[in-house]
């Protein structure tokens, strides 16, 4: 994989990740944001967050099973886009949906489990996004950094729960995302078992950044 190909692929990934924003802007400009635009924006940004979280989580297992090691170079980018969309999602709720009604916020954050769960996931993503730079990794040390970024599993699980609890009757979509998440976690277990079997016990652990 040459540097030029990586750059070209990054451009494509940028455009793909911005797709939902383009979609919403296009719908806005053509007055086609449905009868309930705020709901459509909330749903679109929320779903996109969940999808990108799952893509981020898929990179390591796919990389290890296929040997396509260059995939790791896209993980931070996609993870940061997931953060971008959760910020949009939360801002839509706060700014457009309840329109900075702080009383409503206090009720939602104490009485509404699905909002609490979503908010906790949002809070957890902040340190992850903040420590996404090479500088932060150096500063923290790979071990600590890896440990912190294990939060991504919790965040994705909370995301699925948030979606599940929000739905009225048709759980097919959250169930789909939940199954994918379960599959990805299972893949990790598989990888872990494989590495235990292959690796002689005396061998030094892999450099922190390459694994996770």
């Amino acid at each position, binding site marked *: 994989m040459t540097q030029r190909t990586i750059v070209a692929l990054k451009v494509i990934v940028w455009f793909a990740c911005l797709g939902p924003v383009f979609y919403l802007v296009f719908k806005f400009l053509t007055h086609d944001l*449905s*009868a*309930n635009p*705020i709901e459509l924006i909330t749903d679109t940004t929320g779903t996109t967050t969940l999808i990108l979280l799952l893509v981020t989580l898929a990179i390591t297992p796919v990389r290890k099973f296929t040997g396509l090691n260059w995939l790791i170079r896209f993980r931070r980018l996609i993870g940061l886009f997931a953060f971008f969309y959760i910020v949009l999602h939360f801002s839509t709720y706060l700014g457009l949906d*309840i*329109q900075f009604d702080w009383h409503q916020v206090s009720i939602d954050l104490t009485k*509404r489990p*699905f909002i609490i769960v979503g908010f906790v996931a949002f809070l957890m993503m902040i340190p992850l996004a903040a420590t996404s730079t090479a500088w932060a990794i150096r500063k923290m040390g790979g071990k600590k950094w890896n440990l912190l970024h294990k939060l991504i599993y919790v965040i994705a699980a909370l995301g699925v729960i948030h979606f599940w609890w929000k739905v009225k*009757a*048709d759980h097919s979509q959250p169930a789909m995302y939940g199954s994918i998440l379960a599959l990805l976690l299972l893949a990790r277990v598989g990888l872990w078992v494989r590495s235990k079997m292959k690796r002689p016990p005396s061998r030094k652990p892999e450099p922190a950044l390459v694994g996770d």
Partner: protein
Amino acid sequence: MAIKKLSDIPYSEITKKAEYLDRRAFLAAAGIAGAGLVASNFLPEMLSPKSAFANTKLNFTKSDLSTHGEDLTPEKDVTTYNNFYEFGTDKDDPYKNATKFRTSPWTVSIEGLCDKPQKLGVDGIVKLDSNGLEERVYRMRCVEGWSMVIPWIGIPLSAVIKAAQPQSKAKYVAFQTIYDPKQMEGQQRQILDWPYVEGLRMDEAMNPLSILAVGMYGESLPNQDGAPIRLVVPWKYGFKGIKSIVKIKFVEKEPPTTWNRMAPEEYGFYSNVNPNVDHPRWSQATERRIGEFRRRKTLMFNGYGDFVASMYSGMDLKKYY
């Protein structure tokens, strides 16, 4: 029914009728009967509507019971943003998936504890009210926290009930939606316990605000809005307004209702609009009127307290939500 002249029939209706003539049946019939016979037997039926309520303009008077001082929700929003899980759970699924839904012929069975049970078509039901169709502009508050203002066209439910002559034992009225998974793809999955059922207490059903709607915005109901005939009870959350009704039954005990069976702690039998009783998962204090940016306060009984509050005096509405 008067036979319409060809020129009276809207183009949309002709295509609609033609759509549901199964092509193979048509060809088979043609093979047996010969082309001439087909033309004389089938074409008039294709061209003259069996029911006056398929995509047609309706004649109606304006009701005094209409809600005043509200802007109507754009018809486009009322026809593209629907909760009608029989056609799918996305808001635009009913709009997309109900186009071929067959609403004619249609039979509603009126049965149970009554002296005059009957099976009627939509035209027959409308005739039960001697005043003819009337337009009722009502607010519609969805349990999800959005609302619309819709000019329904229909008849008072009380007219139908009176015609059936319910017995004194009849305390409730139960309603049922058609069950037809072939036409309603949402029914192919067990999202809800099909067929959809709803119910009202007898006094609620007899309340002058309760109507059976067969149209809106001057025309017959679009399929995605509950064609050919649906319930509208504007002081209750929208899901009480059961769509595409095939059965109206008088019963002694409180009948089961679909959403209550699905999640009893979230959806009660009464489901009156009440800003003081939250849905367990979200607030009911405010709502977003479709087309508006700011949320507005939800009104007790959706603003229809003058007509309906007395029916619930003495009841603990936190318990009977």
